């Protein structure tokens, strides 16, 4: 039946690695990710996790170590934050191995959280899943391996959790029994794992698997196709997780209190938690505005947003990031997804929470109210900092 424990987000990450029976892990400590490394080391030292911990001198080495391990057929895990993630950028690019990495968000311009770190890895070809609470972190760890290792996908997953806000906040978490997790997540069978019976031709063909046809245009096409196939797989895995464990997260996104809504706000990570009670209050006041929590940023749910556009007249997109010189990353992508729909809804952009600025229920309320106004007529400005 599992048990409950009060734990911080970082411990939920490490617990998720234990339950997923990770075999190789390598990570370099960096605030606010450091305690993940400590918890993992503890779990390994106490025998709770039977894994090899590869000690390294940098994030670059951590990233290539787990890639090597995954290539050799081991279930591999790493974790980092902000600048550490930037340092991993090169080996992350184009990687096609089913690694899972926790990214404890830390701004590119401060020690405090925002999503600029993971957004800077937007085009590396990893699946990006954002979490809003400690339970979701633990559950998403387990789901991530199922998604990553799926034959139609076979790609790495980055799991995002807001540094400090989630990494250090303790709350009760339900920990499923190992047997149940084992039934949901079978042992990893690496595609490229070498074996003694391999012919030299097979070995040669195998050599490039980690990068997946490196040096060809086809490698880009395949990578993109696997990524798009991941949309279906993410939804399937989430549904099955729901059946087995009784909790699900909508896969790509979740519509919360959206029934009959004229407008919706779009939020990621912990801002979604702050938005929920605010949306409840607004609905009670008769204001028809709902919440779309975007969990999967890559692959981006273009078609799904186009479907939603038939139902809602306005989207208020909250970006805890900025692409300097352009704008909110999610705002831009969502708006471009809706370019070809008839009766285009209005799309508003809100930048907030950068470099750890606090996002309060009052701010979410202002965003939601403005979005609702936009569902009924033009509002100015289209994009603002909150």
């Amino acid at each position, binding site marked *: 039946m599992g048990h*409950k424990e*009060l734990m911080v987000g970082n411990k939920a990450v490490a617990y998720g690695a234990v339950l997923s029976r990770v075999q190789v892990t390598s990570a370099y400590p960096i605030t*606010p990710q450091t305690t993940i490394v400590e918890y993992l080391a503890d779990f390994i030292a106490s025998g709770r996790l039977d894994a090899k911990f590869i000690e390294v001198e940098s994030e670059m080495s951590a990233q290539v170590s787990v890639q090597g391990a995954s290539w050799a057929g081991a279930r591999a895990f790493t974790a980092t934050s902000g600048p550490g993630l930037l340092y991993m950028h090169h080996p992350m690019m184009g990687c096609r191995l089913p690694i899972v990495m926790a990214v404890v968000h830390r701004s590119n311009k401060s020690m405090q959280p925002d999503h600029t770190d993971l957004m800077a890895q937007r085009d590396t070809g990893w699946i990006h899943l954002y979490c*809003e*609470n400690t339970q979701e972190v633990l559950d998403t760890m387990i789901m991530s391996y199922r998604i990553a290792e799926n034959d139609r996908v076979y790609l790495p997953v980055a799991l995002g959790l*807001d540094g*400090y*806000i*989630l990494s*250090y*906040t*303790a*709350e*009760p978490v339900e920990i499923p029994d190992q047997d149940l997790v084992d039934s949901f997540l079978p042992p990893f069978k690496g595609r490229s794992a070498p074996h003694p019976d391999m012919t030299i031709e097979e070995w040669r063909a195998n050599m490039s698997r980690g990068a997946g046809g490196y040096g060809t245009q086809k490698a880009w096409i395949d990578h993109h196709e696997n990524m798009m196939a991941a949309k279906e797989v993410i939804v399937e895995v989430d549904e099955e997780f729901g059946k087995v464990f009784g909790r699900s997260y909508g896969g790509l996104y979740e519509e919360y209190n959206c029934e009959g809504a004229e407008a919706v706000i779009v939020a990621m990570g*912990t*801002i979604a*938690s*702050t938005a*929920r*009670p*605010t949306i409840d209050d607004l609905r009670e006041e008769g204001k028809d505005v709902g919440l779309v929590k975007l969990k999967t940023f890559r692959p981006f749910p273009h078609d799904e947003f186009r479907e939603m556009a038939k139902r809602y007249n306005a989207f208020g997109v909250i970006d805890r990031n900025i692409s300097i010189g352009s704008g909110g990353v999610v705002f831009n992508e969502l708006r471009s997804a809706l370019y070809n729909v008839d009766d285009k809804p209005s799309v508003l952009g809100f930048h907030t929470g950068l470099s750890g600025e*606090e*996002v*309060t*229920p009052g701010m979410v309320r202002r965003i939601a109210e403005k979005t609702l106004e936009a569902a009924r007529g033009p509002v100015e400005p289209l994009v603002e900092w909150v």
Partner: protein
Amino acid sequence: MIEIRLHGRGGQGAVTASRLLATAAFLEDKHSQSIPMYGTERRGAPVTAFVRIGEKDKMVRSLIHEPDYVVVLDSLLRKTVNITEGLKDDGMLILNSSVPPEEIELLKPYKVATVDATGIALETLGRPITNTAILGAFVKATGEIGLESVIEAVKQQWKGTLGEINVKAVEAAYEATEVGDPKIVAEVVGEKAPAGSRADWRTFRPVVDLEKCTGCRLCWVYCPEHCIEMVDDKSVIDYAYCKGCGICVEECPVGAIEMKSESERGE
């Protein structure tokens, strides 16, 4: 939903207190959050932590700005930190203080609970770590959490003797806590610190014996905060900026500077 803000100094265990309170609530089948506000952690610096107790789907992820309860682990902190900021009108203050509630000066008629947590901690733990004692006071004053739950949370946190003596601290504080009404005043006399002040980092302050000081300037050279001025060839420390590092004491060749406990200055 109840929301609690805890104030302490680094080393007193405010973050642990928040953790224990959240665990105690969790043991009573409530949902809870323990939120540390992370800045630079150093012994002596003011620390804030928060606790939310209530339903799971109401757990927002911002800090707490309008608490129902404010818990203060340090007896001097209320002079430098605005501890009542945002406290709800019907809110309550739980203070580590050796004086009864009636002697606590406040602008508004909040309910006040006091306990000499430092005294109790020194007696039971032998160290001025006030986090468990103040929780005993919280339980007694608010009734929001059961004493048994807090004791269980303490036992889960520390095994063996350490757990036992901390349970004693909880129980002793529970017995000794007084609840009452404060003394309402027009202005709370605080110590307004100038910008960039390091005064609240100190647990100890350097005090110069002007008789012994030879005016050699070594302390003046080595002070990392540049807060020593030579006045008439004697070392004079600006306490608004002194961070209490004690380097001047180490460097003084004639032993003219001595570190004295800040709390000895009394309440």
